[in-house]
């Protein structure tokens, strides 16, 4: 199972949030779960992330990095793809080097809560 995490959306970016959900589900199919997670739950104007859980994909062989990268660059977002089985992740930071950075042995339990 993987989680795709797009962040950070500003509080007023509801249209972008909807566009993100539309875009991802259009290319990957319906997500098992879409989570909109505020960075500060106590703040009504908090920035937020959008997570997509997909049980049918793994990081290995995942063929949609180009699409995710385009969305991240175009909208100045960060994107992380996390594999729950291998505990590895790949991240793309729109404002850093133009490459996916892979990290292994990462625990991201909050993606399934």
């Amino acid at each position, binding site marked *: 199972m993987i989680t795709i995490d797009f962040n950070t959306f500003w509080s007023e970016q509801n249209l972008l949030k909807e*566009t993100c959900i*539309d*875009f991802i589900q*259009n*290319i990957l199919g319906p997500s098992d779960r879409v989570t909109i997670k505020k960075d500060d739950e106590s703040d009504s104007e908090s920035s937020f992330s959008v997570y997509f859980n997909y049980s049918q994909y793994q990081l290995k062989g995942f*063929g*949609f990095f*180009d*699409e995710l*990268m*385009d*969305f991240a*660059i*175009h909208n100045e977002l960060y994107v992380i793809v996390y594999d729950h089985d291998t505990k590895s992740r790949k991240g793309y930071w*729109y404002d850093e080097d*133009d490459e996916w950075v892979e990290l292994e042995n990462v625990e991201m339990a909050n993606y399934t809560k």
Partner: protein
Amino acid sequence: MNYLIQLANNETGGGSVLNSSVRSLRIFSSHKCIYDVEAKMFIHFLVVISYSGGGCQDECLYKIYGSNLEKSTIQISTSAGDSFFHYTFRNQNIVQLETELNHFDKQIQGEFLESISKYLLYDDELDCFLFNNTSINITNGFFVTDKFPLKTLKYLKNVYWPFSTHW
């Protein structure tokens, strides 16, 4: 818009190549990416101007549907003012000829023509574009903006690439 410029012989820019030849501009490329809300996909447009051999310079406008080059449909027009795409490729095979540019394509084409004029000057006598911008920092003859899609530019030479410059 993203840019890539390479001058021949490691020129430093600053207008020094204006008195030079058709080979002075090794490559000029600009890139723009838009999100098509209805199709829910990104569309990439690239202009490439470069030496094509035989004392000639060529230019192409590429329109790439989607983010994954292996799956994308790619349309190509071969002149700045073209009103139609000459070729449509998919998986490196021609699938259609002569498709008209739509209203939006023409709008993008206009933006490219305007942006090209900020960097290049058309020399009537030489019948080619020459680099002409003193405000950007050309280092060892090379300039590229952060998110210029080099991978896409490299891919295009497998599809339709009349230029002698290779990546």
